[in-house]
């Protein structure tokens, strides 16, 4: 049966089932090897000295005492990294500039945030390394700092980069500022659109920066040989990206650096750039030993991630019957110490779920003295869409309309021209809204002090370059190799697609992640692209295996290859005209491979096009303790279009995980900075991500509106689930309270402030 027929009849053998993941046993038994789990002979311990200042000029660094300490094998500072010219490259869904990257991994002229790396040592033991750090003398000239996005934009704010003149404004300003860039998009005429409106709402929102919160801290082991070749083992979402960045920063040939991705304990976008890796390589080069570096959680908080905190202004106009006539927004996103916040995608996504004739969105990319932001699950979108969804909800309330009805009246559909450019293909937004409307959750009764919120969300999803190799072993089993680290169960879905195509049992396919020396370039695991793009590569590779298998059968039977077809795991003559032969299984053909031309394999190296966007709608019930301001999430339902769920459990897991992270973002997660610009809550104790007992069982419903550009209809599912969550929780809290907060996180002090139980909260 062809794939098209299988789709038509829904008769898949593996796709859509829920087998145990191939990496599961090793993970639950502790056998799986993560970033910190590699041990090499002669390995040293690498540690980073970090800035205690939010903003300071580095006047001098004296490493002589540290170098003299017995057991210290290498010390590196800015002098060990070469200056990089400004050059922007894609890092996942974000852009990064090599000039900034080299400064982020090791401060040069200035330290720009508390925790900024200023030196690193490699030593025989952790205690020697610790002592060595204390012996490094850094002379700082402390400068005034600025943390908040609004404060950083004010005239007279301390300027981080003396040569930063706002891009995207005419004429270019002649004084430097912290506003790296202004961008704008839109369509139609918003002024005319607002004139047609019967009601106009304007609201301003503030969101806190939040960390991706992966459980596994950054870790790597670097080993540089005297011949210039190097190996690197690290926890990353993309080892080809690590290879490219490190080779560039160190001036190496890409072929001289072999990078292996360890098992990864979460990334959520935060492991799409490099921090320790180039430093470990330089230390290893200098020390002539392998060097392991592992961040502490405190280092992760002070120096990596998060996503932007922001200030967002939204204006919506609508007719009495709920048709949105115009939408406008201004987004101010924190980029951290270097330019490159996700304000661009924030602008593009802000109104993307809706079919609105007149749209204008302006974004500002703003630097301040905090760690450089990194991608986080649909970077930029959760912030702008949170603000828009809150206003949509208020619009529905003011118009006396059901919030789902209002969304249905304005929902983007196939053929809708998105404000950010393209015309949507088949999309499942309306289907998620209809499913929400008829879901038992939406119509269940609520108790006192309880409120229900509903919100929707959009994310693009991407495709991109992926490689896959399937080697057929002598016994007829298949070795499947891909170059995208498995962060969300992708080995399972890759193996399922390979088994489906080849027509063999799933347990005959062993999926592995190849290192950079084993496969061609694969873009990183991010952008919700792997099941789509690497999945497509696997399907192409499987097709090439089948072509090879048919050729072998043709050779065995001595008939033309066109007279051999591959069906359900067997080669058969296309008809009796071709001859009478017993079908040959994959194992039969594999056993004769040596006699028919040698090993059998299929490869694919593609740039997958045609990724399709994901839409979701969330429903949440909360209860608020009006004496303490505490919010309890009682019930949560995620409804999202997956296109086609290859492994439904892992799709549901993505839905649940996104909602869980969104609940944390909505309720309690925030960075607390002291007057001195230093982060105070550098651990999970005080950076309050939700724990399991904070969450109800999150219910899920998978909608399947196939993506026509994938053989099985797959669209990305990993990022969209975060997007609606903050809006949904905010609306639920606001309905429980009868008042709107317009600020995240909705922590207990803020809730009490909002209902007037206490005065101005300072948190």
């Amino acid at each position, binding site marked *: 049966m062809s794939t098209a027929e299988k789709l038509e009849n829904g008769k898949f053998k593996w796709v859509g089932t829920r087998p145990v993941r191939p990496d599961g046993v090793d993970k639950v038994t502790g056998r799986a090897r993560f970033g910190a789990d590699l041990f090499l002979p002669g390995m040293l311990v690498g540690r980073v000295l970090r800035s205690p200042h939010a903003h300071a000029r580095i006047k001098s660094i004296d490493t002589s005492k540290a170098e003299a300490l017995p057991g210290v094998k290498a010390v590196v500072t800015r002098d060990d990294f070469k200056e990089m010219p400004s050059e922007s490259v894609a890092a996942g869904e974000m852009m990064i500039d090599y000039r900034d990257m080299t400064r982020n991994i090791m401060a040069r002229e200035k330290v720009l945030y508390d925790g900024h790396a200023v030196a690193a040592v490699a030593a025989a033991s952790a205690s020697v390394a*610790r002592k060595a750090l204390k012996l490094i003398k850094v002379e700082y000239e402390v400068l005034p700092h600025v943390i908040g996005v609004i404060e950083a934009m004010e005239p007279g704010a301390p300027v981080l980069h003396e040569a930063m003149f706002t891009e995207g404004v005419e004429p270019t300003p002649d004084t430097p500022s912290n506003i790296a860039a202004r961008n704008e998009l839109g369509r139609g005429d918003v002024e005319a659109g607002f004139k047609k409106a019967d009601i106009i709402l304007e609201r301003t929102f503030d969101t806190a920066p939040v960390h991706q919160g992966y459980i596994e801290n950054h870790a790597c082991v670097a080993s540089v040989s005297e011949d210039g070749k190097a190996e690197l083992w690290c926890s990353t979402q993309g080892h080809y990206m690590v290879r490219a960045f490190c080779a560039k920063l160190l001036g190496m040939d890409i072929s001289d650096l072999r990078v292996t991705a360890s098992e990864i304990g979460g990334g959520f976008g935060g492991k799409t750039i490099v921090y320790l890796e180039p430093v470990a390589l330089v230390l290893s080069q200098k020390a002539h030993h392998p060097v392991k570096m592992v961040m*502490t959680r*405190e280092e992760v908080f002070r120096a990596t991630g998060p996503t932007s905190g922001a200030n967002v202004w939204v204006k919506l106009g609508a007719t009495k019957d709920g048709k949105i006539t115009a939408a406008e927004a201004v987004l101010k996103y924190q980029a951290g110490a270097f330019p490159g916040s996700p304000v661009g995608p924030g602008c593009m996504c802000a109104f993307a779920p809706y079919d609105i004739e007149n749209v204008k969105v302006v974004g500002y990319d703003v630097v301040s003295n905090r760690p450089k932001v990194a991608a986080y699950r649909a970077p930029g979108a959760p912030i702008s869409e949170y603000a828009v969804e809150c206003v949509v909800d208020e619009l529905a309330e003011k118009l006396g309309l059901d919030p789902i009805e209002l969304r249905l009246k304005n929902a983007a559909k196939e053929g809708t021209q998105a404000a950010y450019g393209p015309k949507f293909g088949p999309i499942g937004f309306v289907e998620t809204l209809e499913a929400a409307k008829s879901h038992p959750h939406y119509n269940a009764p609520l108790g006192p002090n309880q409120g229900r919120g509903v919100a929707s969300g959009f994310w693009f999803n991407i495709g991109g370059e992926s490689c896959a190799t399937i080697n057929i072993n002598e016994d007829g089993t298949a070795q499947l190799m891909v170059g995208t680290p498995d962060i969300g169960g992708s080995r399972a879905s890759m193996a399922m697609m390979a088994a489906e195509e080849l027509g063999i049992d799933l347990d005959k396919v062993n999926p592995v992640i190849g290192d950079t020396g084993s496969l061609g370039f694969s873009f990183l695991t991010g952008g919700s692209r792997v099941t789509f793009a690497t999945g497509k590569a696997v399907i192409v590779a499987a097709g090439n295996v089948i072509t090879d298998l048919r050729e072998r059968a043709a050779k065995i039977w001595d008939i033309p290859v066109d007279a051999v077809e591959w069906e359900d795991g067997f080669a058969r003559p296309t008809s009796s005209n071709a001859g009478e032969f017993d079908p040959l299984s994959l194992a039969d053909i594999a056993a004769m491979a040596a006699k028919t031309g040698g090993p059998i394999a299929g490869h694919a190296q593609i740039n997958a096009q045609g990724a399709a966007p994901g839409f979701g709608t969330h429903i949440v019930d909360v209860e608020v303790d009006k*004496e*303490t*301001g*505490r919010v309890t999430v009682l019930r949560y339902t995620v409804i999202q279009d997956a296109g086609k769920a290859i492994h439904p459990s892992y799709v549901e897991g993505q839905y649940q995980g996104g909602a869980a992270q969104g609940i944390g973002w909505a*309720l*309690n997660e925030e960075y*607390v900075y002291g007057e001195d610009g230093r982060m*105070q*809550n550098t651990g*999970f*104790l*005080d950076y*309050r991500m*939700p*724990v399991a*007992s*904070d969450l109800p069982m999150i219910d899920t419903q998978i909608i399947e509106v196939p993506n026509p550009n994938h053989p099985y209809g797959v669209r990305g599912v990993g990022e969209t689930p975060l997007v609606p969550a903050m809006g949904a929780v905010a609306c639920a809290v606001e309905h429980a309270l009868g008042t709107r907060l317009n600020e995240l996180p909705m*922590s*207990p*002090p803020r809730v*009490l402030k909002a209902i007037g*139980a*206490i*005065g101005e*909260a*300072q*948190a």
Partner: protein
Amino acid sequence: MEQMRYEAPDTVDAAVALLVGAGGETRILAGGTDLLVQLRAEWIEPDLILDVKKIPELTEISKENGGFRIGAAVTGAELGEHLGVKKAWPGVVEAVELIGSVQIQSRATMGGNLCNASPAADSVPALIAAGATAAIAGPNGRREIPVEDVGTGPGRTCLAKGEIVTSIFLPSRPAHSGDAYLRFIPRTEMDIAVVGAGVSLTLDGGGKCSAARVALGAVAERALLVDAAARALIGTPVDDAALDNLAKAASAAARPIDDKRGTKEYRIKVSGVLARRAAQAALERARQS
């Protein structure tokens, strides 16, 4: 010093002798649930770690004068399974059980919680409300002091060099008594009190409060015994008016700071809310006992 020394004596005298003889920085290891975190985070670099878990008297729970003497190194899990203590002082036990996760409960001790001297320690307000005392051994012999006198500020205690807390004594209880401890955290678990409130009270035959003690945690440099809040209850049937007065007195006594765990005004407000709720829970227990 290059090496950190670890000692695990099996008598109190040996422990005191080691402490008296030690130079440099010394830390006592009971459950280690604070100490190991501090070590790992490199906040401390002690020269000597003195493990007190091998001292039998520190790991026992015994009856004494109708009350209970609980060794300083008894774990939360052990205490939680002790039916006698649980029945007499449910508020103390529930406070101890709030310290950390299940895994932490298997290690964490009341002695450690008291001597770590965090203003937000969960067991301390409950112990203060209970009128507990701490037994201390040192080079000059043994002494017994109210628990509220042990902590003097964040990370600071009244213990002199060479002294260790060996046990905590919970007195016998009159009939119709009850205690309770509540803390506020934004999450459900794995968090540190933003405010903690412990209340212990006794009812007379007519259902009026004849004795009460109220303590607050996380709202000052150390846990506070709030006499004014107790006076708001004594002599009343613990009705709404009395509870309102208690809440007001608790809020008035709170002198918190703004920090990463909560704002000053938030903590003041919630001190009253929690004291009131804890008093209601203690009242319910007193009525049933």
